[in-house]
């Protein structure tokens, strides 16, 4: 039974968040965990698309989204946000990227800022589940293929044409038989 903290106002994240964090098996404990996550967040901002194990990707997703939402909410000049960005982003050029590229890119978004996909398993090896974590709006080709209308599949096209041909033949037959009947009646 706790009271929610009211000293700060935080924007809602548009991703699914588990009730508990993952410990991430670090010899240095909680600080080591944050260091690991910090490196991953840096890599995500730098390369905009990463392939990594699912658990770490899930954890960093939350932190990346939080950073971006804080940057969008408070902007460049807010001191606590700058301190936070200073701690989280090690390469200082990426701070520029966060405030000058990512914030304008994501400021009007109604959806999450990152996407997390489950990468294919290297069957039959038994490995940790892999995943792909990317920032939306990145310059790379999209991971999910564009939706193609299934009508244009070759078998569908052939079937359609065959249907038409069959129908045409049947109509010919019917008209032929009707003409014959007329002739007979006469």
């Amino acid at each position: 039974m706790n009271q929610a903290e009211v000293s700060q106002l935080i924007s809602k994240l548009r991703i699914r968040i588990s009730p508990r964090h993952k410990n991430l098996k670090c010899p240095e404990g909680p600080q080591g965990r944050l260091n690991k996550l910090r490196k991953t967040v840096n890599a995500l901002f730098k390369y905009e698309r990463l392939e990594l194990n699912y658990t770490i990707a899930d954890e960093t997703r939350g932190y990346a989204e939080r950073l971006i939402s804080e940057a969008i909410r408070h902007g460049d000049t807010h001191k606590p946000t700058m301190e936070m960005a200073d701690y989280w982003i090690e390469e200082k050029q990426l701070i520029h990227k966060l405030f000058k590229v990512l914030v304008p890119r994501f400021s009007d978004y109604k959806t999450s800022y990152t996407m997390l996909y489950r990468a294919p398993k290297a069957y039959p090896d038994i490995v940790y589940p892999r995943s792909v974590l990317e920032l939306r709006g990145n310059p790379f080709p999209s991971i999910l293929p564009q939706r193609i209308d299934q009508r244009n599949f070759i078998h569908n096209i052939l079937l359609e044409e065959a249907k038409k041909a069959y129908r045409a033949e049947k109509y010919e037959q019917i008209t032929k038989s009707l003409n014959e009947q007329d002739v007979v009646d006469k």
Partner: protein
Amino acid sequence: MKGLLTFKRIKNHLTFNFNAFCNVLFGQMPPPALSFANPVETLKPSSQHLIDVQQLFKNSILWAVPKHRRTIEKRLGRKFGYITEFYKMLMPRTDLFTCNHCGHYYQRRHLCPNCYKRVKDETTEFQEVIEKELGLDPIEQEVVVLYKGEKTKKPEEFWKGKRIVELKREKPVWFCRNLLQRTTIGNSDCKDVKPSELA
């Protein structure tokens, strides 16, 4: 018959060895209160008695033996495993589907490995090119990667405010060039080939 014999044997052993046991404990004849009804020949204490105690432990007392019958549920559980935990039987996989774009198999809710491999290779190329060109400068503009002939396709204003990185290849196409050539100009009047054996 066998049971009786074993029972007799056990009883004899117990009586025989009980005295010996008492000897070991008290160092003398068992006190009158502890002796059995038919006092068997009392032996002198020797090392044989210790071995007899061991014999008692080996033969008369039953160790590591099932106490109750295993129920059919338990037996089946051990044999076939448990569905909720670890089922030992082979179960068909219902989470493999064919990709609509390339035809390879993929796991449900995962990416298609073939499609993803293509994208991954492209992405690594893009990333290398970007790193080479931009290096360690602060990135203050959106980065766009374009193939050989793509810059001229859109008007100049479209590229304003974006940092362009150019790749010296042409855009990769799904089909090979031969397949992309148009073979039909329109509906042909040729009636040589007709669809046969329909329906």
